[in-house]
């Protein structure tokens, strides 16, 4: 059994799973990021290389935050990493007809009543209607997941976006945040569109038997109030978690920035893992984190060791970076995290 699973099942105290993503691994191999991010085979290759180099306890299949948003019409430019050049045209008031509004209302009511959600998903032709300008990267992620499943015998967590953050990418973050207060129905509608898209994407991922990591950084209390989190972000996250867990996989949630004001809400989502910056916050859910990304990037071995030592005092933990490992993080700094956990176990992984 893998160390992450053992920690989840209370059989072990620590595992190590730094959030090493495709950008860092591409850099290790001097690969152009766009060529990796748009090709499932290359994506799997660089992530496998990262895993073999560091020997951490799981693989995070994460290319960049825009995979799903791009499939919904977001336009990106790579120089060398992706940035948004135009928000989705899907999000226009006249596009409301693309989705049967009654089905979304049913999803919300149904979730509240705790019934099966499965029957209420969009039909395939409706999902197709949403993919106005799909670049096919969703399919590349699926391809990469299949390849990694065949090649590597550790848990593979595929990163997907929380519907709240996904909506901010397709509408534009500033518009979206203002909409939460002055055009509430529209905000709910767009979040439901994002949720439905994610449910269809999730269905494909769950068929592969991979675990899921949901990143929802825009829902952080560094951005929105706990009340807005409850109103807009909580339920879509809980729906994705519930759907995933029905198939027996593990689900992590990552929200960086300030999470203290929403920690009780996060703790009640039903996730298996909470990846947060401040791991001193009390939760029933297993926490993941402990080492600041900036310390990893710029810190001395002593500074990193100091953060690890402090983190391991907090109890059962998946030792990780507080957010995505920066591209140019020194190799030895990431290895140090793995070594420290191996030392705790009294063995060296080969």
């Amino acid at each position, binding site marked *: 059994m893998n160390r992450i699973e053992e920690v989840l099942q209370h059989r072990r105290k620590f595992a190590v799973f730094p959030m090493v993503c495709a950008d860092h691994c591409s850099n290790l191999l001097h690969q152009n990021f766009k060529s990796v991010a748009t090709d499932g085979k290359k994506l799997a290759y660089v992530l496998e290389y990262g895993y073999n180099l560091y020997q951490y306890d799981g693989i995070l299949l994460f290319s960049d935050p825009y995979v799903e948003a791009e499939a919904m019409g977001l336009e990106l430019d790579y120089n060398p*990493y992706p940035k948004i050049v135009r928000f989705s045209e899907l999000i226009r008031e006249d596009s409301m007809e693309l989705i049967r509004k009654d089905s979304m209302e049913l999803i919300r009511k149904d979730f509240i009543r705790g019934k099966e959600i499965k029957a209420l998903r969009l039909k395939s032709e409706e999902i197709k209607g949403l993919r106005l300008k799909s670049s096919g990267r969703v399919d590349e992620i699926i391809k990469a997941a299949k390849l990694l499943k065949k090649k590597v015998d550790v848990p593979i967590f595929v990163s997907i976006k929380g519907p709240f953050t996904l909506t901010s990418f397709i509408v534009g973050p*500033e518009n979206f*945040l*203002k909409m*939460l*207060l002055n055009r509430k129905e529209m905000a709910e509608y767009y979040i439901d569109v994002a949720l439905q898209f994610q449910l269809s994407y999730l269905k494909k991922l769950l068929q592969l038997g991979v675990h899921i990591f949901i990143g929802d950084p825009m829902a952080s209390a560094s951005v*929105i*109030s706990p009340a807005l989190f409850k109103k807009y972000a909580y339920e879509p996250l809980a729906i994705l978690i519930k759907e995933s867990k029905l198939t027996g996989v593990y689900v992590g949630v990552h929200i*960086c*920035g300030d999470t203290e004001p929403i920690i009780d809400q996060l703790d009640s989502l039903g996730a298996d893992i909470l990846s947060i910056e401040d791991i001193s916050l009390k939760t029933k859910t297993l926490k993941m984190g402990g080492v600041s990304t900036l310390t990893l990037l710029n810190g001395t071995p002593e500074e990193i060791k100091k953060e690890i030592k402090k983190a391991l005092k907090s109890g059962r933990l998946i030792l990780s970076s507080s957010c995505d490992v920066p591209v140019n993080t020194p190799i030895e700094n990431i290895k140090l995290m793995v070594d420290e956990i191996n030392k705790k176990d009294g063995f060296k992984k080969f």
Partner: protein
Amino acid sequence: MEISLIKKAVVEFESDKIKGLVREFLDKGVAPLDILEQGLIPGMKEIGRLFAIKEYYVPEVLLGSETFYAGFELIKPLLVQTDIIKKGKILIGVVQGDIHDIGKNIVKVMLESSGYEVLDLGRDVPNEKFIETVINEKPKILALSSLMTTTMVHMETIIKILNKKKLRKTVKVIVGGAPVNQEYANKIGADGYAEDAAGAVKLIDSLTVNPWS
């Protein structure tokens, strides 16, 4: 009718009401500078206070800023140059490759409502553009923002170019954004770091040693 109604409209982000209110006060003969200094600016300062104590979050600040600007645009052409004693010129922008500008926009409105003249280069700004503008506009402060670990490296590059061109003594450089902290600011040789918009105003006040502050 009290001028505090304008402050209230900003604080409660009543962007549909603010223009009507400002026009009413102007029609009654209230000086544009009084509307600014007794209505709009106190409103923005209150928003800054509420943000600092976590009663307001980013959406509330964005709507408040929008309301402030809606009122400000009406009175701006009516203000004569001597009406506003500018505290100093600040150059601000989000570094190359980074399009996350919400934080920068909030800092900008807080600075403008605190009496600074702000030159905003926007987002995804090439390093050379910052240097060129420092040379041409001679700001007191260059404020750089980044939300990504992949783009924050440009902050260091900009400071190195300023050093190389011997411009470093003419402008103070401050940095901010989610992945940045005080240690990083020290490491790259910045003059300061602020965690949030209110902190940025205080930092700039201290760096410009303004008699108002």
